[in-house]
């Protein structure tokens, strides 16, 4: 990095405190891993859900009192958390666990199925025929290369340009701004998309799906029992928040 002259010049303390008070600058925060209670098994959660990560984290923490829950809204944070935070277990969809070589010990199910279709949504008319050269938006689930491979498999083609977004809600602007020809999303997220927009959305189910629902992988065998017991005892609304209605043991 190239630094400038006078690199140690600082803002006067009163200004710093003023800005801190306004929330415009942020004091150093410890890594999120450290926020989970050290004495409890720590579970890292990375899912595309119809709720902000902070809401999901708060809800899960209330309903999983024996576990320390850290919910990540973005792939890079999740990846960093896995590397630096060394969680005891991970809750995510199957492709994310598979990318990491993690086997699930609890598989989420909805309507008796452990997978769900993924959809290709577009404006006014569904994208039929070849997708060669099309730009497709998708939530960044697996990083630059991983998400490209994931989408290639879902769409059964390699000749597409992808636009990764950080959050599920960021897919809609891609359509509004005509920045993508289509977007890929789990079928469970279609309702929320239609609720938000007045664009005429057309969808088609992707041949390369379906994709595994949320599953739990235990990374520390010593805490397996408490993790499994805790997730199995979740109430119906909390499971619904996670997009499942029951858990099965693979």
């Amino acid at each position, binding site marked *: *990095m190239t630094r400038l002259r006078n*690199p140690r010049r600082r803002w006067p303390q009163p200004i710093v405190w003023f800005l801190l008070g*306004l929330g415009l600058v942020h004091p150093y925060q410890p890594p999120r891993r450290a926020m989970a209670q050290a004495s409890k098994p720590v579970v890292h959660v990375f899912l595309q859900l119809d709720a*902000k990560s902070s809401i999901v984290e708060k809800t899960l923490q209330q309903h999983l009192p024996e576990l320390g829950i850290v919910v990540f809204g973005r792939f*890079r944070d999740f990846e960093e958390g896995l590397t630096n935070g060394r969680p005891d277990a991970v809750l995510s969809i199957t492709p994310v666990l598979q990318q990491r070589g993690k086997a699930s010990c609890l598989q989420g199910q909805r309507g008796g199925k452990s997978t769900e279709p993924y959809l290709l949504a577009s404006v006014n008319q569904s994208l039929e025929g070849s997708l060669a050269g099309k730009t497709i938006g998708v939530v960044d689930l697996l990083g630059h290369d991983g998400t490209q491979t994931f989408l290639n498999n879902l769409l059964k083609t390699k000749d597409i340009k992808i636009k990764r977004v950080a959050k599920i*809600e960021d897919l809609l602007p891609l359509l*509004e701004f005509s920045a993508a020809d289509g977007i890929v999303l789990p079928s469970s997220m279609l309702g929320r998309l239609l609720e*938000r927009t007045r664009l005429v959305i057309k969808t088609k189910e992707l041949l390369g799906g379906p994709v595994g629902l949320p599953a739990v992988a235990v990374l520390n065998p010593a805490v397996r029992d408490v993790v499994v017991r805790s997730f199995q005892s979740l109430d119906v609304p909390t499971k619904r928040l996670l997009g499942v209605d029951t858990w099965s043991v693979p």
Partner: protein
Amino acid sequence: MKWLVPALSALLFCLADCATGGSETGTGASPQAAAVLVDPPARTGVPTLLIAMPISPSFVEVRKSLVSEVQKNFNIHTFAVGPETTAAELAAVMQATNPVCVVLMNNATINLYYQVQTSNPTAQTPPAVLLMASFVEQAQARLRRATGIAYEVPGVTAFVHLRSVIATPVNRVGVIYRPPFRAFIQRQTSLAAKEHVELISVSVPNDVTAAGLREALHSLARKSKVDAVWMLNDNGLVRDAEFVDDTWRTELSDAKMPLIVGVPNLVAPGSSLGTLAVVPDHEALGLQAANLVFDLSDNDWRVDAHPVELPLSVKTVVDIKQVRSNFGLRPDALKHIDKALE
């Protein structure tokens, strides 16, 4: 009115910090900010991405996200820009690092790059990605081989968010603008129409008075029958506490009209001003910038063919108390708000 003092200071700070820049940003880095600006170790045979930026929290957040995305594919060299930085210094860094692409954050940094290009019009300069500057499209037009991401949050994004928070309808939104914003407003009108929102715009002179602004607001609220009002981040319309109190607050509190603002500090329960603040999500902006860099790289750095993108991701702050009292809160709205104030 006391609450307005910090709020307006915040607005002015944000505008200066993120768009015009060039004040204290470069050399006023906190130790934490400086610490996170360490570049990853350079590797031989790997192309370099030069990031020229002020050191302040918003820029650091975007850089962090951008670097985490692209560091596997590029060496990163960060050049901290401050008020004393010269075009010659930027040119020297470019010569020393020979980047395949340069990311320029804020208007002051872009101006330096413009000076580098104009000082030697025939010299080849690397393609540039412009971020976190006001009116990026105008900046792009002045430069050779530049594209970028606009920093202004599109109105349609704000309107869709407002619609998912309040129970009352959002079909007609009023906005007041000064002449420099005319092209921006025209584009917003067509974007809003896609979501079936009619943008009712009222032009006021550059030197609009409090009475003139009040009249325009009154006309929007009473005659045009808009469902909400959108306040632009224009310090000509939000000058000081007294001005805001005499105009926006006076007119809109009587009309009980939802007000969309672009600065979180204008949303404060009890103040009866902003209902919803919609602000850029800087971490997501870093990801969008990384996508752009990858796109350009895949396209042999043909930057000119790549139009300026609109920002995709925002964060929302909502005055829940005001919403509940005046407009009704939609079921499940709280699940989708970044910061709910009561």
